[in-house]
């Protein structure tokens, strides 16, 4: 049985609560054990790096150290958390001075990070570590006929970790095919949703959301699947603002990929947090 340490991150506590519950339900069904980090702290997202990078690394290193104590690799469902954890671990490994300084600070909480914990994104964990074949074998209610736009977003893929494909990855599509859905091809699957620009540059962010929705709809998407709470909120909560701003009429449900997996695995909708979305997925899912 596969087992991982699990760092939910702040958004999954409330704003993206359905991502959290659907992750736990889906993992259980697939026989993956997730052990939530005890007493984790906020990773600082992207904004903390504007203030003090050393502290930003330290915040993330605390979570890494807590994960390391479990002896398991750690998985993060939020792309920003994932990026921060992945690169903090990498920087500490390549810069012993940095690691030493941060570990000196971690001592205050009785912690130490030696750099052995591997960091995975939840999507990578399901799509690559568990794998489409394993998932397909457990599907009881394939999502036949549902056209889903896989939305990778940014920080799962970028910056590049190694030599992996960053211009046209396919693992999200493969995962969607495994649960019986039809992944659609569209050009903006890795284009930025705007992230926190919705706060600092609203019109830019809204137009980015608009372009994404338009591109997915043009290719016939019934819904968009995301793998990051920030993407989900931008694409969903600001759809109405986009409509007001640009005179469009989007009503595209934005679900977490774990919710779709859960449905295909036969988990009841309520347990997956379906119904908590602002743009209802019921019309699309009713056809199933």
């Amino acid at each position, binding site marked *: 049985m596969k087992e991982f340490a699990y760092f939910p991150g702040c958004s999954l506590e409330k*704003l993206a609560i359905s991502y959290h519950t659907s992750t736990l339900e889906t993992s259980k069904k697939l026989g993956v054990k997730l052990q939530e980090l005890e007493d984790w702290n906020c990773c600082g997202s992207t904004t903390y790096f504007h203030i*003090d990078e050393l*502290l930003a690394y330290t915040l993330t290193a605390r979570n890494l150290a807590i994960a390391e104590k479990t002896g398991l690799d750690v998985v993060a469902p939020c792309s920003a958390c994932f990026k921060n954890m992945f690169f903090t671990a990498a920087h500490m490994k390549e810069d012993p001075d940095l690691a030493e300084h941060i570990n000196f600070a971690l*001592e205050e*909480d*009785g912690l130490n990070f030696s750099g052995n914990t591997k960091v995975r994104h939840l999507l990578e964990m399901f799509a690559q570590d568990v794998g489409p074949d394993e998932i397909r074998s457990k599907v009881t209610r394939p999502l036949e006929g549902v056209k889903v736009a896989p939305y990778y977003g940014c920080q799962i893929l970028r*910056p590049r970790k190694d030599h992996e494909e960053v211009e046209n990855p396919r693992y999200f599509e493969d995962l969607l095919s495994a649960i019986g859905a039809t992944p659609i091809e569209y050009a903006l699957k890795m284009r930025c949703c705007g*992230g926190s620009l919705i706060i600092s*540059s609203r019109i830019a962010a809204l137009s980015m959301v608009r372009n994404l929705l338009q591109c997915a709809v043009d290719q016939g998407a019934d819904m968009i699947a995301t793998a990051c709470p920030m993407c989900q909120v931008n694409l969903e909560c600001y759809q109405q603002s986009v409509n007001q701003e640009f005179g469009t009429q989007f009503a595209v449900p934005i679900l977490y990929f774990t919710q779709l997996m859960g449905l295909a695995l036969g988990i009841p909708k309520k347990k997956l947090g379906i119904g908590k979305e602002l743009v209802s997925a019921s019309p699309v899912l009713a056809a199933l």
Partner: protein
Amino acid sequence: MSETYTFTFMKEVSSLLHAADGNPFPMCVQCGTCSGSCPVAAYMDYTPRQIIAMVNAGLKDQVMESNTFWYCASCYQCTVRCPQDISITELMYALQRYSIWKNRYKEGMIGPAFSEAFAKTIVRTGRTFEPILAPSYIFSFKMREFFQEIQNATELMLKGRLPILPPRIKRLDNFKRMIRRILPMGGAE
């Protein structure tokens, strides 16, 4: 004999970078792949390529007065495509730090206030808490945007997706002492 150091704006900014060990600015060939890849370029005062050229030319005031680095969404598209392997996103972070430390930014920018409010919440509680962040930006919104935000918040609240009480971590005292080992402020070590 003492070495002579000429400070240039380019050097100042490059010393704020770490991942790129050294000074990446002279490496830029001005190909514009970054600007072409940037999803926000159309809304920036200067594109990423222009900002790099301006830093190289020492145009500190114009760079600081621009919205470019505050409009960077950290999507790293420029970074993975740069043929010279310049981490342009990190460069934008460096400019943001420079701007916050020097307290110099274009008038009306929401980014700096938001970053500060965000950082404060983490330092105090170990967690973020969305409702406490809202005042850092919502009052600078125009009426229509303001009501869009309120409408969003209300809907999210009805769906049980907004936190009511600020979360905090359990070992907060340790956490605060940890922070003091990095940023030596507040109380004795």
